């Protein structure tokens, strides 16, 4: 009886499945095509690209656009800054959050409820743009790369995810280490952290993506263009006309192999490439993280 139930497919179900799969294919197409279009467009000889329309393959493969963009000093400095900020911010953020989350995963610690509420409240209310802006000034971090790293390094959201994880770790391991005379710090460093690789990776990835995609911090806190993040550089590039672009240090060649449009597109691809490459492999970590976070403790 059971076997018959699961293999029998009614006409209605068949139709439904066909429609369902079609919808999914459509969704995947609209999610992927914009990037595909841009890659193909930017790899084309612009003489042909100007006619517009859909791009499924490059029209006369041409790397000039990328040669120009990758030589642009603003793009290069933006890239360097973004990498620096992302790496430092992620490492420091993961460490600090882990320390905080571990300490507050021990219910016996005096002030447990108080500190937890303190952190939770920041999810409901905040100072806002202007006080943060002023704080950076008062900390003498204005126009300093640190202003791109520090704000946003530790968040309540990440804290709760990590803490949920630490609370779920079996007490036994820590207990036996404690009996053997290990200090709390050693337990944290040598036992808990190695066991927590999954959650550390998850939070690390959330932080890394956040840092890489951040542009507003540069707009708010940084004045020197050579300290802007890549996203901020990209944003300015997009907002400009080609005459202003030569100011930014991009040489528009006389021949039409390259246009302002193709430069924007190539810059977009370069900016988002790290994410596009890394993300499919690490997707499961992101998903796990969200699920743990939504079952808030």
């Amino acid at each position, binding site marked *: 009886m059971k076997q018959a139930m699961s293999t029998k497919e009614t006409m209605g179900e068949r139709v439904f499945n066909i429609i369902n799969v079609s919808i999914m294919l459509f969704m995947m197409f609209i999610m992927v095509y914009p990037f595909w279009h841009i890659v193909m467009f930017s790899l084309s000889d612009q003489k042909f690209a100007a006619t517009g329309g859909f791009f499924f393959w490059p029209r006369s493969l041409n790397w000039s656009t990328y040669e120009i963009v990758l030589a642009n000093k603003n793009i290069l400095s933006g890239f360097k800054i973004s990498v620096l900020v992302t790496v430092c911010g992620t490492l420091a953020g993961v460490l600090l959050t882990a320390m905080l989350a571990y300490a*507050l995963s021990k219910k016996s610690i005096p002030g447990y409820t108080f500190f937890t509420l303190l952190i939770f409240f920041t999810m409901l209310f905040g100072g806002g743009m202007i006080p943060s802006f*002023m704080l950076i000034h008062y900390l003498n971090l204005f126009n300093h790369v640190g202003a791109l790293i520090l704000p946003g390094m530790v968040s309540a959201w990440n804290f709760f995810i990590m803490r949920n994880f630490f609370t779920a770790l079996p007490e036994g391991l820590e207990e036996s280490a404690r009996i053997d005379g290990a200090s709390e*710090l050693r337990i944290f460093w040598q036992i808990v952290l190695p066991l927590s690789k999954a959650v550390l990776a998850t939070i690390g990835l959330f932080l890394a993506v956040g840092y890489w995609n951040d542009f507003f911090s540069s707009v708010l806190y940084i004045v020197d263009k050579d300290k802007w993040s890549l996203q901020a550089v990209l944003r300015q590039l*997009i907002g400009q006309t080609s005459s202003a672009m030569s100011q930014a240090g991009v040489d528009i060649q006389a021949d039409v192999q390259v246009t302002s449009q193709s430069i924007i597109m190539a810059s977009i691809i370069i900016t988002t490439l790290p994410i596009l490459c890394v993300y499919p492999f690490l997707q499961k970590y992101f998903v796990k993280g969200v699920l743990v976070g939504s079952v808030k403790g």
Partner: protein
Amino acid sequence: MVNKMVDKYLAAWTNVLKHKYLYILLLPGLLYFIIFKYIPMWGVSIAFKDFNMFRGYMESPWVGLDNFTNLFQGMDFGQKFLNTLVISLLKLLFGFPAPIILALFINELRNLKFKKITQTIIYLPHFVSWVVLAGIITLFVNPGDGIINHLIVFFGGKPVDFLNSTTWFVPVLVLSDVYKGIGWGTVVYLAAMSGVDPHLYEAAKMDGATKMQQMWKITIPSIQGVIVIMGILSLGGILNAGFEQILLLYNPIVYPVADVIDTYVYRKGIIDANYSLAQAADLFKSVIALVLIILANKLAKKFGDDGIW
């Protein structure tokens, strides 16, 4: 009496010392929260002052509610508030159900490999930055050679300058926001759906229920707790109309429909350095958001679901 107090104090202090290593771990993170989250909270008080950067915080005089009166009486703010609400509500109207519906369909996919590939791909826009996405939108809806207008012309229409039109700007905003979030939004719902007892579906099928009926009567009620919580969180953020997205896409032509409280705060506060007025607007928004999320949480509890706290 004094002895008791001293004892209590000593006991508390000993307790702290017992956990001194935990406190060492706790300290940097705690300091971070105090410096970067709580000190700025104190900064909202400049909404009640006539803040002057040169005079500094202490020397700037208190003006009570003057900034708020100026704000509300001015011609601008009402419109910004309205825009914020309209955009937020539209985003909620389309953006809240969309991931749920998509999740319902994904949940019905039979082929596991196809399902996994689909999920991986639809999560993508969420991880792309708004700068990149806004750049793509700008290129695609370009009235000259953007492919969207190409399609419109192909089907016999006239090209539309979407980002400079007060009619089309908000739809583009809402649609692109849904586009960016719909895939990733399914994660929580799919997880909840996977926890539904398959026997329920079998029983329903035996009773002759169609797929639609199964979805409506089994799946949705089973995940209703998750829906409520996500709903509460969305309500809490209702006055955030999507600052980064709007900042990247808007321009003075569409201010009448696109300028929201946050962009107003940015222009008035950071660019014009009219800190007090801008902060008043920001504080107004934060307080309302706080009240909303508390109310929403209470409401959810009243209906029998678990709130967030």
